[in-house]
């Protein structure tokens, strides 16, 4: 089954749309009355999107949703997704892939904040950049993302992989401030630079292949180790939090 959702031109395109109904399962189970919210107004899906559905599906995994047009303010797409595929050809709004447990989301453009928040499984690939709190937990929650993979080919914002508790996060560009803060488990890889990486981490594993600025001083330096033949410094911590996390860093700078 192929579901094509094309965002119609909107008079006020900056008004966010809450569209947690856009998941493969809703279309697999059939829907006549799917609605989205704009502010406190409930609107039929058709008012925001041109909807085209082709073919049948035997299981939820055979459902593919393609989102075309300006979807940069469409929020919560793929929330609680448990199978199938979502392909977003442009940018996507906040909270894409919240609580997702299986399936795949591919974003050709950029993603706004909270991409893959509290994700349980599945895979998200973002070919552009991601906003703040990519693959993070939510306010106050102790455990964030618990499984699956998030891969961002551009940069990521601040608080990337905050309270990470499982799964893996790969950022090909740079990550903002406090990436991996309060991390508990799982694996975080940053190909570029970041700052104050993994503050307060209690477990898990992180690699920074670029430079960590403002390196947190409460990590114990274990020594030099080779990663793929290159020299890295291995740290353990955050000892301020009795942490047992491991950090491999190519270059680092302490705060002056």
């Amino acid at each position, binding site marked *: 089954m192929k579901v094509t959702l094309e965002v119609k031109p909107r008079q006020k395109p900056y008004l966010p749309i809450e569209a947690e109904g856009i998941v493969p399962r809703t279309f697999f189970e059939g829907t006549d009355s799917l609605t989205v919210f704009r502010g406190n107004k409930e609107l039929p899906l058709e008012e925001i999107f041109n909807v085209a559905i082709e073919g049948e599906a035997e299981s939820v995994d055979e459902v593919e949703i393609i989102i075309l047009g300006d979807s940069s303010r469409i929020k919560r797409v793929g929330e609680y997704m448990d199978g199938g595929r979502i392909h977003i050809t442009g940018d996507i709004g906040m909270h894409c892939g919240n609580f997702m447990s299986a399936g795949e989301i591919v974003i050709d453009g950029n993603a706004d904040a909270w991409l893959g928040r509290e994700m349980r499984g599945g895979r998200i690939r973002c070919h552009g950049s991601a906003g703040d709190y990519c693959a993070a937990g*939510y*306010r*106050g*929650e*102790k455990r964030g993302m618990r499984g699956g993979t998030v891969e961002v080919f551009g940069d990521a914002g601040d608080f990337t992989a905050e309270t990470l508790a499982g799964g893996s996060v790969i950022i090909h560009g740079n990550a903002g401030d406090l990436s991996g803060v309060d991390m508990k488990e799982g694996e975080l890889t940053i190909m570029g630079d970041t700052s104050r990486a993994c503050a307060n981490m209690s477990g898990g594993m992180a690699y920074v292949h670029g430079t960590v600025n403002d390196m947190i001083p409460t990590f114990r330096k274990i020594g030099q180790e080779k990663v793929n033949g290159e020299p890295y410094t291995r740290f353990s911590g955050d000892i301020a*939090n*009795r942490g047992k996390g491991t950090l491999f860093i190519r270059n680092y700078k302490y705060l002056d």
Partner: protein
Amino acid sequence: MTELLIRNACVIDPLNDICGEVMDIAVRDGKIVESVGSGAEVIDAGGSLTMPGGIDSHTHICGTKVNFGRYMSPEDMRAGRTARRGHMHSTSGYSVPTTYGTSYRYSAMGYTTALEGAMAPLEARHTHEEFTHTPLQDMMANTLFDGNWPIMQAIHDGDIRRAAAIVGWTLSAVKGFAIKLTNPGGTEAWGWGKDVASIRDPVPHFEVTPAEIIRAMIEANEMLNLPHSVHLHCNCLGKPGNHQCTLETFDLVPNANNKRQSLYATHVQFHSYGGSSWRDICSRSEEICRAINSKPQIVIDMGQVMFGKTTTMTADGPMEFNLYRLYHNKWSNHDVELETGSGIIPVYYSRKNLVNSIMWSIGLELALLTDNPWQCILSTDNPNGAPFVKYPEIMALLMSKRYRNEIFGTVHPDTEHNVPLAAIDRELTWNDIAIMTRGAPAKALGIEDLGKGHLGEGADADIAIYPININETDPATSAEEVIRAFGQTDYTIKRGRVVCRQGTCMVDGKNTTIWVDPHISENYSMDHDPEFAKNFDRYYTVRMSNYPVQEEYIRRNLCIETEAQL
């Protein structure tokens, strides 16, 4: 004139010795009367259990500390979200819900009156503002005096009449209801980086002991003729072996009032631990209950722990700091100038954890081993032991040995070696539960004469009708029925109006704040005491003239005026 007639109500009203009698209840203008005219609105209870509105005599639902619990736990707000509907505001939160959430949930369970367990006098305005927005319960505020500098100074000088005068002045200034002592002296000592390890341990600088504070405040309480007794959270909360401290505290209590108790000891579950460390902690509920059974001058509440997520919040600063060191989770501690302090920590009570399982067991043991249900009130110290929405489950646990055994089978396997619960066969009756949630709290708080906690003529028409027939239901074998029935009333009636119908609140509501104003002679009036004024200006960050809570903070209110023997 509005009239209401409730027909075929199966009434349990312990204060009037009515137990399971099917009768009609007539209400006129919010009061219970002998009879009403034929034009009255009629509710047919159909033989359902009908009781006075529930009274929670120790709960933390309004004030700065509760609000800080909300503030530091945004994740708690993700639970229990409901949308706006009819007269109901939107709500959110589980262990520290929004004020409306608290009010609606209490009302759905048939509760119409609640006592906020701890209000720092300096922060009274916030508490009263939240009272205004808890519209379906009449509210009272326990006022904290555990580390009050001028009072400790007066006790040190041996001038208990002066201590009483300061209490009286403060209560009427902040519109408080009763004296609350939370770890007396301990929070002040913590300001010096210490705690008090026993009731004989002096507070730094003031050189008074908790025992002296407790005894003096009991005496002061009686001098002021307050409706409620001293409301005490004993020292050493949550420490293994603290039952000694609790027993010593109970030994201090004279029988100073023949109408009610002289000491209300709150959440005694947290004060009944044996052993010397977390490894050998055990229940000492039997000794505690033996003391209570022999001392009619003491009333306790359970402070039952139920498994699951909650938030602990208390004015006991050092205890919360110890908890923080144990859990290593987020934590907050506050200091309230020269009065008290507070601490807040989210916790998870797990049935797989031996200590938590023992705590769960001790609360139940206290209720089951206290012979006289008038001396043990049902509470969870909401939200410290569990959110109050767990009350129906606690009632079922107390009423059914079978249900208790079933849950006992799911807790940590070593629990049975540390607690006597498995050997207790007592099952509480419907009447016992009515006493523990209506009669006893009303009597202990001294508000039964105001028409609270009973259905006699002239009483406030606060009535709860539960969808259960007590003649057809055996609580010992049908715990689910009991939980369902106590979880949601058919009708909750407040001041003669149906405020909640099967969980849906029907009115915006407007509550009453009950407070006390002791009349003190000019000689002891703190308004004209130069030393009190001098120290006030010297140490407080507010002016003495700005300190009292203005009338506009308390909308509808009921002032209990007492004549102090001063």
